[in-house]
């Protein structure tokens, strides 16, 4: 592991009311690495992704973005600059596919360059025929491709994906995985939350499992398996 760490978490905790959703979470993310985050429903996967994207504030813990200890406000700003979070069901703004892609570009980009960048993203995600289609009328697979193309235009260091292949048919799932591979090859660190690891076997380098609010790193040979509950109950945060 000679690659530099681009994001490090330590002793991260989050509670909703009396329920402790995340306990002493610690792990690191590196460029070009794909990490799978598994866990049952309500295990805290989405909460963890939302904290990493700056949308949710942790109760305790440290998120190191390479700038030393920061207040939550500054950490949030640093996270929002380099991390991009994709919802389980990507949100499409009211407008065409082209409008949605353009949203990811900063306001100051000149129009010809803007159009060229959008065209490149359209080609990349094979969205050509859908260029001017209202984005809200797209199917689940098409929305996923638009959201990934939008992410590519934003050019993040870390991409957080919440169940990116849920409710997709086999063809749409394959296309989504192909696009994710492109991100990985370009050095983007991927963190995928899913309770179905088998879908990502060709992509992932590391498998973290959330159980009872704690995180466990699984060995290589167990990369694709969800461990039985009795073994997880005794696990401590080892990631």
């Amino acid at each position, binding site marked *: 592991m000679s690659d530099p760490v681009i994001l490090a978490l330590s002793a991260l905790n989050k509670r909703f009311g009396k329920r402790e959703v995340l306990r002493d979470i610690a792990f690191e993310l590196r460029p070009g690495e794909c990490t799978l985050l598994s866990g049952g429903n309500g295990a805290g996967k989405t909460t963890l992704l939302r904290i990493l994207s700056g949308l949710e504030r942790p109760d305790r813990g440290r998120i190191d973005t390479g700038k030393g200890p920061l207040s939550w406000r500054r950490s949030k700003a640093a996270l929002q600059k380099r991390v*991009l*979070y994709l919802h389980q069901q990507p*949100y499409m703004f009211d407008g065409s596919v082209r409008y949605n892609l353009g949203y990811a570009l900063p306001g100051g980009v000149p129009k010809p360059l803007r159009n060229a960048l959008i065209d490149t993203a359209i080609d990349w995600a094979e969205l050509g025929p859908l260029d001017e289609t209202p984005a809200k009328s797209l199917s689940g697979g098409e929305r996923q491709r638009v959201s990934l193309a939008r992410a590519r235009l934003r050019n993040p260091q870390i991409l957080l994906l919440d169940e990116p292949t849920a409710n997709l048919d086999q063809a749409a799932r394959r296309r989504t995985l192909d696009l994710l591979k492109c991100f990985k090859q370009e050095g983007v660190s991927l963190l995928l939350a899913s309770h179905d690891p088998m879908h990502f076997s060709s992509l992932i380098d590391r498998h973290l499992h959330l159980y009872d609010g704690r995180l466990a790193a699984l060995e290589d040979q167990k990369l694709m398996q969800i461990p039985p509950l009795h073994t997880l109950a005794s696990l401590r945060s080892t990631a």
Partner: protein
Amino acid sequence: METLTLTTLAALNLLFSGNAELWEIIAISFRVSGVAILVATPPALLAAFFLTYQRFPGRRLLISINSTFLSVPAVVVGLTFFILLSRQGPLGEWKLLFTQTAMVLGQIALAFPILVAMGHSALQAADRRAWETARTLGANPLRALFTIMREARFGLMAALLAAFGRIIAEVGASMMLGGNILHYTRNIPTAIALESSKGEFAQGIALGLVLLTLAFTLNALLQHIQGKGQPVT
């Protein structure tokens, strides 16, 4: 029945013959209510946004207080501003009583809670992922705010039209704060009240027809906007 028909015909004649006095009253109405809506809308929508997206102590209380103001009669709003702006009142030095500015202030106070309540409902109905997606795609809070407003625009337009419809037809606040001065603060509702009390029904009916046409136009617009806002299936 015959009297009503004759009066209505006289009213239509007044309207379509371009009676200067009548059209001046209509213009004052639209000017005062238009300015009131323009001034009230930005802070009201901002308040609606904070009530929807921010969690802070007393938020629910604020929503309840705002809802209470929805049912305050226009004449009570008029009376409150009358006391504030009268010569002996705390704002008496401004010398605003019986001016169009005073009418605008009263109408802002009437429109504000409607805009906040309906704006809050519209923003609550909008998908919360819109804000999160905008922020995660690099939009600063201001751009994300405009994005949310754009996403909820049909509901927000409905709020705007409802508030405009309410204030252009109110008589209590305009009468107390404007004083019903011809060529200056006489608007449609205060003119109807005055002309009817004098037994001059033709002008009252003519102005009533204008309000009725306006109400129809606003409702038709509202229906159109709400139809456009239906989700794509």
